[in-house]
């Protein structure tokens, strides 16, 4: 008995022994390449959803064809992958691993868990614009990531639904609220909303903050150069509180997949989330993807209009302990080309590539529009859990869930205080 409890407490120390390989599966990409430069490359992948897994396998096959290196894919369920990343990178990591751009990449690069990819970027740099390069650059000025795709966080809706009811796409906050009111009057949920997993609602905070206070303010807040008790943050929560009556109630107990289903069933009029989730869910549920459309979040502060949004970027990094760096870098070089992105996006019907001037014949309407809208932005955020210290994002998850539970003015002040005192502990 004693053993069990002390053991539970003692588990703490055995980090690295907690690597779960649950749900992990290996597959070697099919076309033989004779494995030059010391055997096959291992590739840690979190592309665990069926559709993404297929797309990723196609990408690896194409990479093998191009570089003549065999690639062994180790797929791990993405939640486990993210949870175990620290132990994984210090244990026996794969040569290459899938990860996210922004601070979330810089955090691991700064701790010496990844190798700089400057030589790769020397070759692929011409394929990308300055924004993509900035997203791949660590705090020390070296590149650590090769991006694959990004996707916008926007307001999704069904075209036929809007046409049937005579709804107009709103461009300003007032129009947005008016439309939501009208939908509520028509007896549907204006804005499908779910936050059981904790992270989806962070996107709503991000967009409101960027619309109200602008991009620079948002980045400073994420780096804790502006305190969470700031007036600007209060304004964000006040706007959100105004929107709250029109958002699907009981969000803290609902997963986003179920919220997307209410949009599919036209029980909800709109849903603000990434195309990577909503459009992918339409494909998974075999819902009518052609009917799905989106608009960028309406303008609030005229000074910033619709200049910014979250468009998270996913890519790949080379682990410090890679056994086969040379061959792995060749693979990254291939992945950093427009051709590779196009190969991946044949299967993936909701993300868009980052290579400049990329022509993907298989793009559907959603993807084409995503490209256009991201291009219009003056700057894109990555998402709170990628822009801020991971511990702060975790703290904000519970703060925002508490806000969803009680969006009253008194509670906002309390939550801001709590966020700030946690930020002080985390960022020092």
């Amino acid at each position, binding site marked *: 008995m004693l053993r069990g409890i002390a053991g539970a407490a003692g588990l703490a120390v055995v980090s690295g022994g907690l690597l779960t390989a649950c749900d992990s599966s290996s597959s070697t990409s099919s076309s033989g390449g004779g494995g030059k430069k010391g055997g096959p490359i291992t590739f840690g992948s979190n592309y665990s959803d069926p559709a993404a897994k297929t797309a990723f396998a196609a990408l690896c096959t194409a990479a093998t064809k191009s570089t003549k290196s065999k690639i062994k894919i180790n797929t791990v369920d993405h939640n486990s992958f993210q949870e175990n990343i620290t132990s994984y990178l210090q244990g026996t990591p794969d040569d290459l691993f899938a990860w996210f751009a922004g601070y979330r990449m810089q955090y691991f690069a700064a701790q010496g868990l990844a190798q700089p990819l400057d030589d790769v970027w020397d070759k692929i740099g011409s394929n990308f614009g300055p924004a993509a390069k900035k997203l791949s650059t660590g705090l020390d000025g070296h590149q650590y990531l090769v991006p694959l795709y990004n996707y916008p966080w926007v307001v999704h809706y069904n075209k036929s639904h809007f046409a049937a009811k005579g709804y107009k796409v709103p461009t300003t906050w007032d129009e947005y609220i008016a439309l939501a009111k009208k939908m509520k009057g028509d007896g549907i949920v204006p804005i499908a909303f779910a936050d059981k997993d904790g992270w989806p609602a962070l996107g709503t905070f991000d967009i409101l903050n960027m619309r109200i206070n602008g991009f620079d303010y948002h980045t400073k807040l994420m780096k804790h150069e502006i305190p969470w008790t700031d007036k600007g943050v209060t304004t964000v929560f006040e706007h959100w509180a105004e929107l709250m009556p029109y958002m699907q109630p009981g969000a803290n107990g609902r997963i986003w997949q179920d919220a997307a289903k209410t949009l599919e069933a036209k029980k909800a009029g709109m849903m603000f989330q990434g195309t990577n989730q909503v459009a992918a869910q339409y494909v998974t549920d075999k819902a009518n993807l052609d009917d799905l459309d989106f608009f960028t979040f309406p303008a609030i502060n005229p000074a910033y209009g619709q200049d910014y949004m979250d468009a998270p970027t996913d890519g790949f990094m080379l682990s410090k302990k890679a056994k086969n760096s040379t061959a792995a870098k060749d693979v990254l070089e291939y992945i950093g080309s427009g051709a590779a992105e196009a190969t991946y996006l044949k299967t993936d019907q909701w993300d868009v590539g980052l290579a400049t001037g990329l022509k993907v014949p298989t793009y559907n309407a959603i993807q084409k529009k995503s490209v256009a809208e991201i291009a219009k932005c003056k700057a894109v955020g990555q998402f709170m859990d990628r822009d801020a210290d991971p511990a702060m994002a975790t703290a904000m998850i519970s703060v925002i869930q508490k806000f969803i539970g009680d969006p009253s003015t008194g509670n906002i002040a309390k939550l801001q205080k709590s966020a700030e005192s946690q930020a002080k*502990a985390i960022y020092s």
Partner: protein
Amino acid sequence: MSSSTRTHAPVAPAVAEAPARRRRRGVRRMSRRDRIAVALLLGIPLLIDIAFVWVPALGTVALSFFKWNGVGSLSTKTCQPNLPSILNNGCMDGVQNFHQAASNYPAFWPAVWHNLIWLGVFVFIATPLGMLFAVLIDRGIKGSRMYQSILFLPVMLSLALVGIIWEFMYSQNLGLINTVIGRNGSTNAIDWLGDPHINLWAVLVEATWRQSGYVMVLYLAGLKAVDPTLREAALVDGANAWQTFWRVVFPVMRPINIVIMVVTVIESLRAFDLVYITNKGINGLELLSVLVTSNIVGETQRVGFGSALGVVLLVISLVPITIFLYQTFRREESR
């Protein structure tokens, strides 16, 4: 972790079997073979115990005074205030972790409180329920075998599975409960697992569903061990069923009661699986065990901080353990 249902655990059987004519230097009089046997039988478990329980536990205590994100090495230099967290890694932080947990970590006090609620529900609801089931089945009502199986079924499921099963019951728009009571619409749905005011109780229903079956089985074993002549004697003395149970049977079952008490305390302190499956232990379902895990495992590794929470849990756990051991040893001596 299994709890032994032995009525009194002699601490070391090997010693208890020592010759009856004990002298002060009785151990010396064992032959060499005996000594080797004793050394092996005691030594190996002791080594395993030290290596896998005490070293990690003490390591956790040590770690709780550091600020560390699980990467790189620890150093004995003191943390500098106002440096970015990446540069302030592996340094000595004194009791800062404990101070932060108690002062500005919003999940901490709710977690302690929820652990206590959990304990309260187990003690005052789950255990009496289990007792009741056991007594009813023990009286040999019709179909007692079937009831026994039904009540014991949840105990055989892993708690993670129990959590998943109850998701089907509690789901807002598609769940059985809301559908039956007609509250599964888009506006009137009861958010059983998402509303921080009720989700703890919803999960406690799940936990009780399983725990009471567990207690029932332990009690049944205890009741079977009660000497039937006692009951006959009580019957002859004209005691009714109520009196027989409380005045005769219950006192005889003292050893089992202690075991059940310990099991209950421990089960409520290590409650983890259900809330983790439900929502990773956030938003009204904070528990100490989950806080330890979510700070140590996961992308956000605050190993020092998580260890501090682990130490708090350890200290809380030591209270019932100490009481239990004290009781056990005292009984051993009084014999």
